[in-house]
């Protein structure tokens, strides 16, 4: 079994119209720019995939990555905690025009819902958002005299994430704060595709330091010297 793919095109080939896609990253750290741009390129060539629901902490910055997906009209809905950034224009304009839906989720609840999706936990209770607008319509239950909101798991058809090292079995490490949501998303999507900065052979990663065991990963594609979203934005990049 070898999970390594040979092209970015292949890596994003099976995402269908209307799919739910988790995309790793927090701001620019951990954003799988090359996978996202390969998906945009596919859309520009074929008109598909569109009508996507995208799950990420944010809603894009500038004109690359998720912002570029939104700009091209591929995204129907964002599920995120913080749709603001240094340059959130693309999302903001479409949101205010009613052209994109937003499900706003507190950040810790977003993380826990994704983890729950991956861990087979359909619902859990959290104190977060109790008594606020974001708890509206959700069951509230008291434990030990304190109110908690019940939240549901979050799953996706696909996850696109970025890792540092990945071996042929899909075992992954991450780089600093670029880890963020990616290990969770790797557990919660039907098909998990990872761009790794360095593809290695099984055994090259110390078993003690593997963050995402290969069982969660379907495919890896090596992208040496990947773009960093923050740096692209500081350089005023656009995709395409």
């Amino acid at each position, binding site marked *: *079994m070898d999970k390594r793919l040979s092209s970015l095109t292949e890596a994003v080939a099976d995402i269908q119209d209307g799919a739910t896609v988790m995309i790793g990253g927090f701001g620019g750290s951990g954003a799988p720019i090359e996978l996202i741009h390969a998906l945009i390129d596919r859309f520009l060539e074929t008109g598909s995939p569109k009508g996507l629901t995208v799950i990420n902490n944010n809603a894009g910055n500038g004109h690359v990555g998720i912002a570029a997906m939104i700009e091209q009209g591929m995204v129907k809905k964002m599920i995120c905690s913080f749709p603001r950034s240094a340059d959130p224009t693309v999302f903001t304009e479409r949101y205010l025009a009613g052209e994109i839906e937003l499900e706003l989720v507190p950040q810790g609840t977003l993380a826990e819902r994704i983890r729950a999706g991956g*861990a*087979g936990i359909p619902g859990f209770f959290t104190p977060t958002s109790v008594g606020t607008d974001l708890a509206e319509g959700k069951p509230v239950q008291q434990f030990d005299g304190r109110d908690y909101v019940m939240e549901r798991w979050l799953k996706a058809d696909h996850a696109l994430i970025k890792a540092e090292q990945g*071996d042929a079995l899909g075992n992954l490490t991450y780089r600093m704060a670029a880890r963020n949501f990616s290990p969770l998303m790797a557990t*919660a999507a039907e098909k998990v595709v990872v761009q790794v900065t360095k593809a290695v052979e099984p055994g090259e990663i110390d*078993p*003690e330091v*593997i963050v995402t065991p290969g*069982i969660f990963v379907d495919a890896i594609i090596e992208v040496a010297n990947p773009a960093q979203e923050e740096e692209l934005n500081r350089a005023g990049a656009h995709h395409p």
Partner: protein
Amino acid sequence: MTQKLSNAQIAWRAAQDIEDGAYVNLGIGFPEMVARFQPEGREAIFHTENGVLGFGRAPEPGQEDWDLINAGKKAITLKPGTAFFHHADSFAMVRGGHLDVAILGAYQVAETGDLANWSTGPKGVPAVGGAMDLVHGAKRVAVITDHVTKKGQPKLVEACTFPLTGVGCVTRVYTSLAVVDVVDGRFVLREKLPAISMEELQAVTGATLHVEGEVGDLICPEELADA
């Protein structure tokens, strides 16, 4: 009817259904034997509840490192690609549906797919381990077992009389006499030992064995007969 498969033969048969690259959890005890019989050219990746994925065979006696064990507390070894993780992540793999197959032992399996394998009743010390998690987690839950108890009682039954491990979870049973699927609340016979007649097999089975299409011959390597 004295002929029946050895445990090794049952384990061998179960191993034939495990695909290359499958993620597999083998219950402690007899099911661990399945790992020995991976077909040529296929390599399953074994998961153990206590936080190891992709481990290797048992070490030579005297070479054990007792911090590297499986859920049955037996020593295992590293392989290229082995990963360690904590118990919550381990059961996220189980409960989250990431395992392709779990192969477990059984006291009884019902035609509804119910499994009883953790307790034979209120006497003694109860112990459940990870069985209740596995039966509702793995994509496919199979059982390997002798066809009858030591006292000759059927283990494939209409309804379990022992406390349940899980409801409607088993989809295939590999016994010492047959391979039986659970389909829509019925046992469907897929394979049986050539030497045993349908009537003989039904006589030692506690629920109706249905036939849908061909019943294959259950033939296992002879050299495992005494293993």
